């Protein structure tokens, strides 16, 4: 009886794992989670079933990660541009005697990204503005930020505000166009 209870618990563990991963998949791939769950009923042996569930959950987690990335890194050209701008702005900030060139670059770039590339727009503050703290952490070169450690995050705030400004500008332009079209059609 204890053995049966143990087998049942192991079986349920496998089912819960597959159900959890399956539920997290994109709508396009969700039925694959159901397919793995249904396949469990055809497998004899608790150990075999658990191995199948673990292996299947691992495989589906790979699909899950690919799905998550595909939605946000599907435009590699724009991502590469944002990364490059982040690196250049960081270089300017750490090397130049004034913060102005770096600030100008981050602001203009993020306004443009916010206005023109709205897909997963949350990326731009992180990719452009987050380059400074990241490069400092990796290289150990702190420049003028050696003493004021919180200040290195200014880029993220600036990039967030600039992206929001770009996005707001886009919304305003689209709303104006719609209003103009409405006026002209009357």
């Amino acid at each position: 009886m204890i053995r049966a209870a143990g087998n049942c618990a192991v079986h349920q563990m496998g089912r819960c794992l597959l159900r959890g991963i399956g539920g997290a998949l994109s709508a396009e791939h969700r039925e694959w989670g159901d397919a793995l769950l249904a396949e469990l009923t055809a497998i004899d042996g608790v150990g075999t079933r658990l191995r199948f569930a673990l292996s299947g959950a691992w495989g589906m987690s790979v699909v899950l990660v690919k799905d998550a990335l595909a939605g946000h890194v599907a435009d590699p050209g724009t991502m590469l541009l944002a990364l490059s701008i982040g690196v250049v702005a960081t270089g300017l900030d750490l090397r130049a005697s004034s913060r102005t060139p770096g600030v100008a670059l981050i602001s203009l770039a993020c306004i443009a990204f916010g206005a023109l590339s709205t897909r997963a727009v949350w990326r731009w503050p992180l990719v452009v503005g987050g380059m400074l703290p990241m490069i400092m952490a990796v290289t150990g070169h702190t420049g003028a930020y050696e003493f004021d450690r919180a200040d290195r995050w200014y880029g993220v705030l600036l990039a967030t505000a600039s992206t929001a400004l770009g996005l707001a500008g886009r919304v305003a332009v689209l709303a104006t166009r719609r209003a103009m079209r409405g006026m002209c059609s009357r």
Partner: protein
Amino acid sequence: MPPFPRLSGPAILVLETLLREAAWTYGYDLMRATGVQAGTLYPLLVRLTDAGWLTAKWEERIEGGRPPRHLYRLTAEGRAAAREYLGRARARGWSPTADERPI
């Protein structure tokens, strides 16, 4: 550019088995026939389906009250592509017995 510029050994094995089977196949049966574990097989089946090489359906007649299972079969495009990839793999010296691993 083809959806799969390169295919791994397990992928070629799965394609070879699907090509040989021709009929609708269950995922677990495919696993047992190829020796490819679920963690490798199912992402591969997802890729093949997304590329249009494989079609999947839920079984219609269910016995014993168990849930319907998924069935898989190569599409016409998939069969043509599988033959091409298998031909190239065999030309490079690949053979199914070299990659088979019993579960």
